[in-house]
């Protein structure tokens, strides 16, 4: 069954038209990568799903129900949780409080805060630190932890590895793999394409706000041209 369906979706910031007739299909329990250049519209797509763009049109269905007109909190309470690009840690709340708030608002079976500390031991030492005082990577970890704690059905990850040290990236990979095994559906955008592709079964490429390609990761790995044209990976001109 498809968990999330976007059909002919258009999104706008004020007068600027960003997404053009975008289609997206995500099945239960799969990981889908959303790829594309800077400014292609990946973040906007995730924001469209969560209801945070100012204006969106088209059909957006979650578990068969139309959510195109739902408010942000309503969509969230359906189990759709976003780890935003800018991390959005509550600056005046402590690490623990950041997680507690998430836990308080969880609509499913929230995870234990301790569980998250086990996953990110760095945070454990910083329990009482205020969000604003965390390092960039620590904030990123907290942001992921905060979403996980809410027991999402559909987890939207916007560049979750940004700012994470290589070891932590590995840890994150493990956690996400685990989470997927537990019945969570994931949509991920990444500049770290390798990370995304390793985790995902399928991928979409977005270019200038429209679908450029869609298919399985295996297919994509065959297509040097796509990787080259839209994702600029694998190019050999690094010097």
């Amino acid at each position, binding site marked *: 069954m498809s968990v999330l369906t976007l059909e002919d979706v258009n999104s706008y910031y004020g007068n600027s038209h960003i997404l053009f007739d975008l289609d997206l299909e995500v099945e239960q329990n799969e990981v889908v990568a959303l790829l594309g250049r800077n400014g292609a519209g990946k973040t906007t797509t995730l924001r469209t799903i969560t209801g945070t763009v100012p204006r969106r049109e088209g059909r957006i269905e979650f578990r068969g129900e139309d959510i195109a007109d739902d408010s942000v909190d309503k969509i969230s309470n359906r189990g759709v949780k976003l780890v935003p690009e800018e991390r959005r840690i*509550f600056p005046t709340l402590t690490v623990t409080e950041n997680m507690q708030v998430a836990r308080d608002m969880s609509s499913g079976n929230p995870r234990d805060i301790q569980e998250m500390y086990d996953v990110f031991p760095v945070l454990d030492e910083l329990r009482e630190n205020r969000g604003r005082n965390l390092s960039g990577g620590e904030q990123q970890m907290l942001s992921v932890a905060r979403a996980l704690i809410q027991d999402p059905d559909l987890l939207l990850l916007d560049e979750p590895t940004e700012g994470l040290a290589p070891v932590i990236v590995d840890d994150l990979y493990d956690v996400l793999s685990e989470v997927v095994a537990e019945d969570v559906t994931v949509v991920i955008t990444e500049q770290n394409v390798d990370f995304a592709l390793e985790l995902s079964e399928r991928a979409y490429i977005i270019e200038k706000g429209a679908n450029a390609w869609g298919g399985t990761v295996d297919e994509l790995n065959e297509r040097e041209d796509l990787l080259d044209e839209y994702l600029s990976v694998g190019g050999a001109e690094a010097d």
Partner: protein
Amino acid sequence: MVSLGLVFDQLITGLTIGARLFLIAVGLSLIFGVLDVLNFAHGVLYMIGAYAALWAIGAVSIPFIGLLGIGFWPGLVVAILAAGLVGVLIEAGFIRRVYDREPLDQLLLTFAFVLMLTDVVKTTFGSGSNVVDPPGLLAGSLTLTSSLSLPNYRAFVILMSIVVLAAIFVVLQTTNVGRLVRATSSDRDMAALLGVNVPRLYTVVFFVGAALAGLGGALAVPTQSITPALGNQVIINAFVIAVIGGLGSFAGAFVGAYLVGISIAVGSLIVAGAGQLIPFIAMIVVLLLKPEGLFGGAEA
């Protein structure tokens, strides 16, 4: 030549003023702390609470509706509801539409309500002064010594301010509302992403803030002369208090209110006109030395 009796009387007067001001300032501070809106109409909500109480007591009548006349105690409830509902109207009907604009836009929106509501009250109740006696239950005073006595009603008003402060702390301690509110006030959009119904939360907060002002206004009725200009007279002092105490801090509002109340009453003993000057000087000093206020930065 300042006698002990006078100092005591002024102290009681100052505490009464402080208690009234606390009830305005605490709501103002609450709304600012959560919504980041400096509610200029807060004084007007206080004034509306006062008129609602007057109406409930039967001292003024509303055209086409007439008098209510159910007495002082039910009047407190009427005042709380009246101010609270007007607050909800302002927030849910208007301010909500401009949350993502400059803070000044919200401030001016509330200023527009100052102008409009003052006029509405004026048209409804006239612009004359209204004065009533304390309720029978609290008439008279407690004699402390032969020269010192404490009017019952004033003691009651002071007590109420303490009760309200305690109630706020109990609510914050025993529920996770405080945390939610702080999270929302620091990042509204993220809170919504976590599932917080931000508009509803804001409306509730505005209701509570407004209702407290309404309660303050109703309690003021027997000790203050009520005119439609009342709102504008108290609002600046309420700002001063909220800032001195620390915007968003309830304990700060409490301490600030009593400091200002007492300085208004006692200051006039020292130098004529000083009562007016002291609060502003105090605000300047606090802002320069501790901009976040005496209790700023403290939890909720």
